């Protein structure tokens, strides 16, 4: 069953068409990758799905519900969480606070109960903390939970971003270049990490990635974008042997 579907999504900035009639379908339980050269419109596509941009035309469907034009916070509430290409942690706050903030959307008491520490709020806060402790434990971040997030090593910041996204209790997780800036060893670790997380939390994963080893290893299906156009889709094997994909990537290499 498809959990996420985009129908002819177009995103234009002035005269520039960043994404042109994007048709993507992600099924429940899959890991789907979105690849393509730099500037192909991958992150723009993510931004259209998560509500950061409102598509110029087309529709985005999540669990068969039209979410086009909804604000990012509403879309997150429905069950889509994301990470960012250029890590966007709450830099001055601790690891624990970062994760707790992502739990805020489930809070069902108002600010007065929270401030006056009424029983409902106390209970909610304790439960929230327990859930976060457990999450950090499972993701191996317990040791650093009281550290300021920007003081963590780079790899751990990436983990924390995923932890924070998971804290929103998503059904669909969007990862924007989770392995960016990682060495092969770290990338291998991340590959295993994504798999475990996906199974443990019964997620569907949709990710943008440049590390082909990672992509080919864990993706069920792959979409390839170039200059805003979808130039290929299929299983890792099909993509590896696709002429247009090879051309697009080689073309980039020639330019470089």
């Amino acid at each position, binding site marked *: 069953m498809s959990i996420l579907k985009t129908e002819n999504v177009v995103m234009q*900035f002035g005269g520039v068409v960043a994404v042109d009639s994007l048709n993507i379908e992600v099924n429940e339980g899959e890991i789907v990758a979105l690849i393509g050269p730099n500037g192909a419109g991958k*992150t723009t596509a993510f*931004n259209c799905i998560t509500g*950061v*941009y409102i598509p110029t035309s087309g529709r985005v469907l999540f669990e068969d519900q039209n979410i086009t034009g909804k604000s990012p916070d509403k879309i997150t509430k429905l069950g889509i969480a994301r990470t*960012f290409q250029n890590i966007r942690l709450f830099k001055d706050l601790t690891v624990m606070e970062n994760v707790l903030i992502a739990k805020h959307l489930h809070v069902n008491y108002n600010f007065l109960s929270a401030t006056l520490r009424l029983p409902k709020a106390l209970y909610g806060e304790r439960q929230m903390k327990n859930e976060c402790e457990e999450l950090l434990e499972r993701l191996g971040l317990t040791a650093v939970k009281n550290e300021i997030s920007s003081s963590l090593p780079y790899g751990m910041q990436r983990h924390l971003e995923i932890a924070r996204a998971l804290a929103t209790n998503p059904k669909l997780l969007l990862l924007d270049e989770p392995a960016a800036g990682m060495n092969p060893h770290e990338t291998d670790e991340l590959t295993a990490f994504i798999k475990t997380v996906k199974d443990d939390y019964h997620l569907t994963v949709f990710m943008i990635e440049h590390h082909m080893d990672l992509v080919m290893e864990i993706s069920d299906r792959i979409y390839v974008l170039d200059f805003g156009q979808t130039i290929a889709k299929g299983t890792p094997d099909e993509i590896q042997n696709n002429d247009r994909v090879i051309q697009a990537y080689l073309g980039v290499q020639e330019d470089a």
Partner: protein
Amino acid sequence: MTMATFMQQLTNGISLGSLYALIAIGYTMVYGILRLINFAHGDIVMMAAYFAFFGIAVFHIPWYITFLAVVLLTALLGIVVERTAYRTLRDAPRTSILISAIGVSFLLENLATYLFSGIPKAFPEFKFMTTPFSVGGVLIQPLVVVVPVVTILLLFVLLFIINKTRLGMAMRAVSKDYETARLMGIEINGVISATFGIGSGLAAVGALMWGMKYSSIQPLMGVMPGLKCFIAAVIGGIGNIKGAVLGGFILGLAEILLVAFLPSLTGYRDAIAFIILIIILLFRPMGILGEKQTDKV
């Protein structure tokens, strides 16, 4: 209301509007380059008025020399303000720069109060500018005609500088993309100084005409015009020089016409600019001539 009074009010509106426009250009130029509201701009206008007062009324220097000196001195003041209060904070959080700008503004106001006292001073009179003449039953001060003419002339000079000279090209480059301009070898600090200099010089011209028009100057005289001219710049589309002029005219006309047609609301004269600002920001935040910008994620 007769046709004559209407024409009278209309010319007043245009005249006030072109004063706003001159000052608004300074805001829009600085914003275009540094993305900063130069809160002190209105107070630079006030300082220019005092320079002129001292030149003519205290030191008895001929007015044409004084005027030239005032423009140069004010341009220098603008450059000094940028060097001391903004340059050191170039890479600081935006809040810090904004607070620094507020600080400079407040400092200039308090300095003027301290040095020149808070008591209003009479700006030197220019009879040939203020003695009205009659056109078809409408009494018009020469000043009312001179102000828009000067504004339009200066606008053309400025557009020439920006579009046809090397300095102008550098300014446009810096305002499009600060970092890239720096990497391309443009001497950023020089361009920014020039921007502050030109903006402040125009403000000085505005101040001279302001002084002639209202004939009384005091340390807080720059505050309200300062805020209104910033609003004018926003209405026209901040960063856009023609927009600033357009915004200035709109604001000047709106203000005069409100007073003329709805005299009972005269007390709200200073509020109208803010009301227009809020409406513009809600429905067309990029201003009338501005371009839409998208945040990069």
